[in-house]
């Protein structure tokens, strides 16, 4: 019982972190049909930006609570500066290419961003652990958790809700969903598709950066942080169904819980638990959990 509770909490808190990152990935795929390997690099950028910004806030002697909005702004800055640059200056030249080809394009972007980040911030580690202490500790069962981790769960819920609302309750959202279903029809209805692409990409990158920004306090920001998140967030969106919001949520939960079970019950299996889940889901639901196969008109 106690163990079950711990597994649940651990699983959920891991899942919520994963969800924020994966959401951006699935959004970008849904609209631009690009499975973005460089997503991890934007995550890293978010973390670095936060490291710099929060350090500055603390330096300015502002109250620690300020670091939360700062992190938000850092992520926003990354999204507004870098995303349009890469989308306009790079990605758009590859639109309409084969999905797998685009994976490679983003792989190249990933390589380049790795070195670029290193050129800007160097190889030394950055720490911004101050926010991590903001919410103190919370005891659940016999475990004492850091409040911040549970705050991330709330953040994830909030992010999920906001994105869902934007897509389903706003005019822009309707347009975006239209583009997701069929860019051709949307553009024939006078939608400026390239604007939507740009917007979706910025949003996706913002979510990646947000994930990085709010993870920064619990890690040491340094080269290589990007690699860890790529494949696992891939697994999430593949499990959930590419381009599906609720899919990303469920996928994140599945992965989080699977991993938590592995760690608590069978640590030796942790290494490939996630891939096994992914493979299994694909075998039984080729399109992922939240994607249906539409018959083609002949």
């Amino acid at each position, binding site marked *: 019982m106690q163990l079950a509770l711990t597994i649940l909490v651990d699983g959920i808190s891991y899942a919520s972190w994963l969800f924020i990152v994966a959401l951006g990935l699935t959004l970008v795929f849904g609209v631009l049909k690009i499975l973005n390997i460089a997503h991890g690099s934007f995550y890293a950028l978010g973390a670095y930006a936060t490291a710099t910004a929060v350090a500055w806030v603390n330096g300015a002697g502002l109250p620690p609570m300020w670091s939360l909005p700062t992190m938000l702004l850092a992520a926003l800055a990354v999204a507004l500066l870098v995303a349009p640059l890469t989308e306009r200056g790079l990605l758009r030249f590859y639109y309409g290419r084969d999905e797998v080809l685009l994976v490679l394009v983003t792989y190249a972007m990933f390589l380049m961003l790795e070195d670029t980040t290193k050129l800007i911030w160097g190889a030394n580690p950055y720490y911004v652990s101050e926010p991590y202490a903001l919410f103190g500790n919370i005891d659940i069962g016999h*475990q004492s958790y*850091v409040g911040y981790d549970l705050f991330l769960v709330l953040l994830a819920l909030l992010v999920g809700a906001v994105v869902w609302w934007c897509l389903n309750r706003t005019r822009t959202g309707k347009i975006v969903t239209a583009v997701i279903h069929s860019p051709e029809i949307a553009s024939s209805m006078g939608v400026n598709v390239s604007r939507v692409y740009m917007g979706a990409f910025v949003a996706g990158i913002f979510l990646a950066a947000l994930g990085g920004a709010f993870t920064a306090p619990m*890690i*040491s920001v*340094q080269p*290589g942080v990007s690699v*860890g*998140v790529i494949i696992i967030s891939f697994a999430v969106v593949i499990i959930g169904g590419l381009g599906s919001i609720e899919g990303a949520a469920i996928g994140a939960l599945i992965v989080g819980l699977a991993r938590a079970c592995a*760690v608590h019950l069978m640590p030796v299996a*942790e290494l490939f638990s996630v891939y096994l889940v992914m493979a299994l889901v694909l075998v039984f639901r080729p399109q992922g959990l939240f994607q249906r196969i539409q018959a083609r008109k002949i």
Partner: protein
Amino acid sequence: MAQFSRFMNRNKLCCVAMGFLCATSAVAQETFKIGIVSFLSGQAAESFGIPAVNGAKVLIEAFNKGQAPAPFNKPGIGGMQIEAIYIDEAGGATKQVQELRNLYEREKVDVVVGYVGSGDCLAVAPVAEELKKFLILYDCGTPRIFEDNTFRYVFRTAAHATMDNVAMARYLQARKIPVNSYSMINQDYAWGQDSRKDFMLSMANLYPQAKPAVDQLPKFGAGQYGTEISALMSQPVDLIHSSLWGGDLQAFILQSAPRGMFKKSQVVLTAADHVLPGLGNKMPDGTIIGARGAYGLMAPPSPLNTWWWNTYSKAYNVYPVQAPYRMAQALMGLKLAVEKAMAANKGKKPSTEIMAASLRGSEWVSPAGTIRMALSNGQQAIQDTAIGRTKWSEEKKMVLLEDIQRFAATCVNPPLNVKSEDWLKSGFAGAKCDSQVANDKKPKK
């Protein structure tokens, strides 16, 4: 298309330029070319690769200017200016094997000093042997390299990883720290798996009654340890052992300290010195850490060490940790060996054969104490090591180490021709632990 072809042309030019460069360096005798390979990108860059390369840069500069203290004061290497080529170790063993061949046969280097990854070391060693080229492994840990093969041109100028966990267990015993149960968290690849095994065997020798409890093997570069920490803390134990390093270790500490893990159990980290400067007061006091040698804060005081400490600190305004020390002891050993070989070779640049012969079985004093090429027919070094306890110093604004205890090389390394694992299982048969220096002052900054 235009860009593309231009790019290729540039490469052709590169080749030509390089060919020319090779030609010159082949005839000219006044330079000694060293290929230095370490992580310049990826997870190991921050903690190992770049500090080591930085160390190499300052040391080689000092060598070339003849500014290093005796016996390293001859300019360059025996008068030859040192020319270094740096290669990124990231990209896997396959890439390393190819780049090693390119270094020897395309860049015509006289020696390659490098490799942090055990897998890379295993892969490149036979290649150097096949090409009959001089190779110095300066860092990688696995004992398998020389225990599974015999080499003539391949050397390792640092002790292998067995030492780290043996010393840790001996420290616990020497400090009379009671351990009836212990948990472990190690990365799920060779380094972590080996450290875990070594520590368990060492504990079996010194703490036969101690029971292993939780045994976590997170994947390399996991970043998020919340779940593992819950698992570790779900069972009350006296001791928690970890061989995590670099970013993983930092993340683990940042995430576990607030949850009171370091208060609940005594935490021992076998390779943690390199995170101290960065973590600062985020490093919990009283943690027992190793440095994979008597490095950094635990280096034995000596003029040489003071010089090295100051030179490095001045250049990069952070004090040197294990990685630069390991690089330094490799380059120093190399310098002396080559100079000895030149003396034997009437001052001319010696052949690989002679250089290897003079490094084989030699010994020299490094900032971390004496290095002895004692094992595996004099190809594998042993060295003294030390373990200490962290203590944040408010006035120095840095983490210091107290209760430092040194262990003689012969006490924590297997004797000649005994495989590490057999030695551990034999209960450290033949270990000589007489010369134990107890706590002394760490060098002044």
